[in-house]
């Protein structure tokens, strides 16, 4: 016979998945407040039967911008959503030797995936072949998880070869969101995570600066389309540059880039918000 706690948590996971698939994103704060209420009797059942709650739905309820702070003893590693930009007919930037950005960033993402998995992170890639999912489809993968970090990787056609930059999203905020509505339009999904994304971008930029000399010391805010619909801490990383005949030095950046990303995410996992911001209500 199936334990009561298990059946209940499956139902909750199904509800979460349905919410993520809808056109509007249900604000996670309220969703997880409900989840927390449901978990009280569930925890009682588990204690009575001598079992420990263990399903992902029983993780501490995250909140926008002060979300992923589980207790020190029970910090669940986030799901890493790696997005190699472009794909399919959208080649992105082109090198003079015929190299395309879509292929270069796919290679970068594969190396980063291995590095994250080596450290015990769960990783999902938005594409692992030459397909071209829409920006919203890519974002939906992160939005379906209660504890995700979204990293989109690009290679630009300008900038000094061997440098890299981290960008966090800065977009027009939603009037509905500011009025306290429980529904957030797709285009404003990132708004609630701007502080966390800024923090993550800063940490990534510090590591990029260490790995690639000549990179800027601090991250940049920009209206990057790829980040707009992501309801999770999200950062775009762009390496320079595709404007080379021989892509060898560019491809050699894959390893150091993976190291920079994993180190920054590990730091972010320990402290999702900067000390000053973390104290704010």
């Amino acid at each position: 016979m199936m334990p009561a706690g298990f059946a209940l948590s499956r139902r909750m996971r199904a509800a979460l998945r349905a919410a993520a698939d809808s056109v509007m994103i249900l604000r996670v704060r309220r969703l997880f407040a409900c989840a927390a209420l449901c978990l009280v009797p569930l925890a009682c059942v588990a204690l009575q039967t001598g079992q420990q709650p263990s399903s992902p739905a029983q993780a501490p309820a995250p909140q926008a911008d002060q979300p992923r702070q589980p207790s020190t003893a029970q910090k669940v590693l986030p799901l890493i959503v790696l997005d190699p930009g472009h794909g399919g007919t959208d080649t992105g930037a082109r090198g003079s030797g015929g190299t395309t950005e879509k292929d270069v960033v796919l290679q970068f993402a594969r190396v980063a995936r291995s590095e994250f998995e080596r450290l015990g992170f769960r990783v999902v890639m938005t594409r692992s072949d030459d397909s071209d999912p829409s920006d919203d489809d890519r974002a939906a993968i992160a939005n379906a998880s209660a504890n995700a970090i979204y990293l989109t990787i690009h290679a630009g056609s300008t900038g000094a070869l061997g440098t890299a930059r981290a960008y966090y999203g800065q977009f027009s905020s939603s009037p509905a969101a500011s009025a306290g509505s429980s529904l957030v339009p797709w285009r404003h999904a990132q708004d609630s995570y701007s502080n966390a994304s800024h923090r993550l971008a800063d940490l990534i930029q510090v590591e990029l600066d260490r790995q690639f000399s000549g990179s800027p010391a601090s991250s940049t805010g920009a209206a990057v389309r790829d980040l707009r619909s992501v309801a999770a801490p999200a950062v775009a990383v762009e390496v320079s540059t595709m404007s080379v005949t021989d892509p060898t030095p560019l491809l050699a950046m894959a390893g150091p880039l993976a190291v920079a990303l994993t180190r920054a995410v590990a730091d972010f996992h320990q402290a999702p918000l900067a000390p000053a911001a973390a104290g704010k209500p």
Partner: protein
Amino acid sequence: MPRNLKIAFAIMGVAVLIGLIGLRGLHDRVKSLAEAQAQKTEAQSRREVLAPKISTPSDTEEQVNIFWAAGPGKVEPVEVELPLSADPVERAKEVLQELILNPPTQDQRTIPADTTVLGFYILPDGTAVADFSVALTSEMPSGILSEQNAVNSLVKTLAANVPGLRRLKILVHGQEVETLAGHVDLTGFFDLNAAAPQKAAASQSAPASVPASAASATAGAPKPQG
């Protein structure tokens, strides 16, 4: 003649021959580069002739700051003297045309050379709407860095030279487009108030192109509509 000397002469002869061949190739390369440079200048001259001269009776010579690229992720003002109209719409068109047509060097270009300003409107609430030709998106170098630089140069140039503007909406051939060249989102507005106080200073890429509401939230200004 000793055998060693003969070998040395032979090696030197081969080296001189290789040098002559290389010198010829180098000469051809320099020549082709010079021709390419001349062609660029011709193309630029043609654009300048074809671009309709914007002028109004109220035009007066003024010193203006046009923001062109100054290295990766950076735009800086360059002071130029232009005949400018007192009418803000015409004034905006004049400074945008200068930004597109006359960068001091090709490396400082932020907007594709073939871009034209199809229209410029100012709404009563201070929203500026700039409508560009398709070349703005089709000829823009792909990448967050280059697209961000392009938006920064537009925003800072308008903020520095056209008073009374609050935010900028960028259209392409009369339509709203999703992105500039695949990366920077053009569906929102870009704050011009945030860029205005920095008009005399060299500026980094981030602050100017902050979309309206995000920038004003940072600056503590009243929150515009998203």
